Every structure is written in C-alpha cells, then in structure tokens.
C-alpha cells in the first residue's frame, strides 16, 4: 500500500499555508543579507518596521501609524493590552466564552494574582453573544471589555460594533482579538468602536510566524511591563514613553517584518477577492458536510457571517482519531480538540473533546472542498 495521497491543507486558522507569493523569498533575503536591526546598526537601507506599520495602519483604516505597535504574535499583543491596563483588585473585566486562551489565560492570571473579577458572556440561542447578559455585565462598570472578533472554533464573526458601542457608553476600554479576522474580514477600529485591536501576522495576513501587532487608540497609554532596548534614545534611564516604542522592547523579528510587508502589499492588491474566495469555499464545505447524516456541524447557520472555519464531529469517531485518519489516511491536514478555546465547547455541545476543524484560505480550490466532503462522507459511512 502506501499509495500517493492527495494532500490538502486545511489548518489555516492555526497558521496559513502557503504564504503570499514572495514571502518565503523575502524572509530568506532578509536573513541572507547583513542584518539591519532598526536603530542598532549603521546599515539603514530599509525601514521595514515603518513599512509594516504603514501597511497595517492602511489595512485597518488607521490614520496614525505610530499607534500600531509591532509585536511577536497575537498572544503577545493581547498580553501587552491586558496587562497594560493596570487592573487592580476589584476591577471588572467582561469577556466571552468564545475567547482563545490568549485572552482567557491573561485574565485568569489577573483574577488569580490580583483579584480582578472576570465576567464571561455566553451565547444566546442563535450562537451570538448574549446581548442581554452583556448589558447586565456592563452595569458592573468594567474597566475592560475583550471580545473575539471571530471564533477560531466556529468561524462566526460577532457583531463587535454592537457590543463595543454599548461598552464605550458604559465607560469601558474595548479590546478586539482579531486573530481570525485580519486579512479575512474588514477590521476597522473606528467602525467597530475598538480601542485596541490585537492580531498576528501568520494567519490571514499570510506572513511568517513570529510577528503580530497591536493597535492602540490615541489617548490610551498602556502601562509598560516589558521594557529594555529600543535602538533609540539610549540616553534615557527609563524606556521611552512615546508610541510605538512605548510597547516595543527588544530586537524585532526583522526577517518576519520583511515577509509580512510583502504579504501586506500582496493583500492590498488581491486581499478582497482572496477573502471572498475563502468564504465561498467554506460555504460550500459547510453545505457539503451538512448533507452527511452522521456529521454534526457546530453552529451551522448558513446565513451567519463567518471566516473560513468549519468545525464538526462525526458520530462513531473520537475527534482526535478522526483527525488522525483525515491526516494519515486521506491526506487532509486539520486540527482536532479544543483549539485553545476551552469555554465555547459546552454551549456548542462539543465538550469535553472538542471538534474536528477544517480552516480554509483563498489558496484552497474547489477540488479541495469536494475531496474533503467525499473523505468525510467515507469516514462517516
């Protein structure tokens, strides 16, 4: 046996592949030439940090690019935002069951260590965030409201503007986790009433891992909890306070910047059609799977706005084993389990084992979707 298999990559929610055309070469080139670490060399040919910042600001419709800090990933960004709020014992934070551990764990850490109270909003009957419960939580006058723009389990995009508008009226600072929407959907902080937007470069932005970003609205000055070398103002005893240096300490990931800048330029030109293709393919995948009797689709609502993520279980198969079989027997790369989002599974009905997740990109083709549907039909037979 050991026949050659068709190989289909459907794990883009963990890290997109392939990358935007030219990204690999850009990273390679940055590593191959003499290092140009910003402010740390006499070689200053390219301002890659500035270029990334400008492109990221452009994608989000942000005027002041200095409000975009370049980080190492979304978890880093979220930690900068959450830990930088200076939350104290008795302060209230409102978040949701859809969150990734990159939000849940920093908040649990603050709850455990500093006595911060965390209120978690569940889902309503339509699998939207429970707005009535959210409004009741706002009566507690939270300092921070953190919402996942799109679930990395179901792909559903939440109407962040509705929740954040209410949160702003209640005086909260609003933080959007856009890990699954940047590059896939429109993420404009003004339109969404988001004071802060955290994201990564290696998912929908089609860049390499090791780079992310955090937008911080003017007027919000996060406490600095990571300080050190900046490449500028070495004369100062304390870390500079002006943005974006305020939130950027240590040598940046220059090769990743080179790759991300190239990916962002590619997305500027092709991003809209690329994202649309992903959505269309995912819709086809959901529809195909919905026709298979022993497949339970999570949060199946054809009308819901989503990114290209499809989660499901197959009766008769443990999720971990189904993922193993999809990978090893059918050549479909997927992810199984809780997907680092442990609290969404009880309301979805997928606790304690989680789901099988297929996540698409615009580089997938219809044949991939057809093959996945046929394979899962075979699994469910």
């Amino acid at each position, binding site marked *: 046996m*050991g*026949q050659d298999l068709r190989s289909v990559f459907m794990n883009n929610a963990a890290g997109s592949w392939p990358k935007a055309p030219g990204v690999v070469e850009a990273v390679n080139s940055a590593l191959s030439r003499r290092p140009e670490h910003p402010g740390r060399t006499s070689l200053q040919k390219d301002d890659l940090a500035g270029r990334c910042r400008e492109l990221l600001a452009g994608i989000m419709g942000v005027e002041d690019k200095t409000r975009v800090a370049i980080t190492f990933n979304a978890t880093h960004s979220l930690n900068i935002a959450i830990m930088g709020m200076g939350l104290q014992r008795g302060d209230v934070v409102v978040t949701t069951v859809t969150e990734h551990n990159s939000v849940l764990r920093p908040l649990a850490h603050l709850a455990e260590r500093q006595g911060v109270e965390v209120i978690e909003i569940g889902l309503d009957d339509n699998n939207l965030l429970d707005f009535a419960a959210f409004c009741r939580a706002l009566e507690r006058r939270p300092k921070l409201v953190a919402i996942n723009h799109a679930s990395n389990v179901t792909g559903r995009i939440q109407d962040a503007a509705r929740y954040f508008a209410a949160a702003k009226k209640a005086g909260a600072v609003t933080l959007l986790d856009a890990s699954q929407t940047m590059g896939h959907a429109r993420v404009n902080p003004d339109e969404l009433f988001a004071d802060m937007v955290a994201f990564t470069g290696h998912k929908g932005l089609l860049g390499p891992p090791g780079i992310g970003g955090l937008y911080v609205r003017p007027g919000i000055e996060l406490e600095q909890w990571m300080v050190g070398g900046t490449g500028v103002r070495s004369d100062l005893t304390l870390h500079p306070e002006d943005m974006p240096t305020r939130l950027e300490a240590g040598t940046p990931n220059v090769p990743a910047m080179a790759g991300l800048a190239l990916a962002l330029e590619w997305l500027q030109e092709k991003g809209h059609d690329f994202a649309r293709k992903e959505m269309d393919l995912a819709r086809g995948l959901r529809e195909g799977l919905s026709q298979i009797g022993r497949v339970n689709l999570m949060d199946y609502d054809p009308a819901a706005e989503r990114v290209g993520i499809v989660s499901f279980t197959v009766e008769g198969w443990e999720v971990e084993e189904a993922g193993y079989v999809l990978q090893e027997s059918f050549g479909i790369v997927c992810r199984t389990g809780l997907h680092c989002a442990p609290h969404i599974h009880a309301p979805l009905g997928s606790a304690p084992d989680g789901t099988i997740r297929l996540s698409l990109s615009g580089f997938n083709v219809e044949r991939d979707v057809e093959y996945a549907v046929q394979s899962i039909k075979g699994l469910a037979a």
Partner: protein
Amino acid sequence: MNIASVKKVEDCFDGGSVFSYEMDEEVTEASIKRLGVLGRLDYFPHFPRPFYRLITDDGLQIKGVEGERDFQVIFPRKEKEKIKEEFERFITTHN
C-alpha cells in the same frame, strides 16, 4: 517484523502513555489482521490509505495506517510495563 525504534510521545491524563513504534518493515494487511487476536480490530481497507485500530480488554490501543512502518500505541496505566512487554513480544513473533 522487528521493532526499529520506540519513542514515548506523551503521558495521558489517566496515567497511560502514548508510544510511537517504528518497525523495520511496512505494516501489511496480513499483519494488521493478525493483530485481531489481541482484541477488537477495526480495519478500513476502503480508505485511500487503509486505517486500522485495535482495542484490547486490557485497554491497550493501537492505531496506524497500512503501508507505513510506524503506528501509535496507547498503554493503559494499570500494568503498563507488563502489557508493553507482552505487546512487543507479540508483534515481533507473530508478524
């Protein structure tokens, strides 16, 4: 068929352990079917690369793909070492 290498992959929550076995030959349909004497064997020959899994009364679990040299084994917490020893003896003498 002989064992080329054994690597511990991880410990399970329940105290069991997952090991990855690599054999010196590919696992064939015949060798998969011989595993059936150990417990309940599920074999899916119609998959592009046939999948098999076995669960024994002791709680030993095996899963793999026909045509590969490697497969995964979960040993239960209870009598882990004894079951592992017996399993290794079985696959090297009966396959």
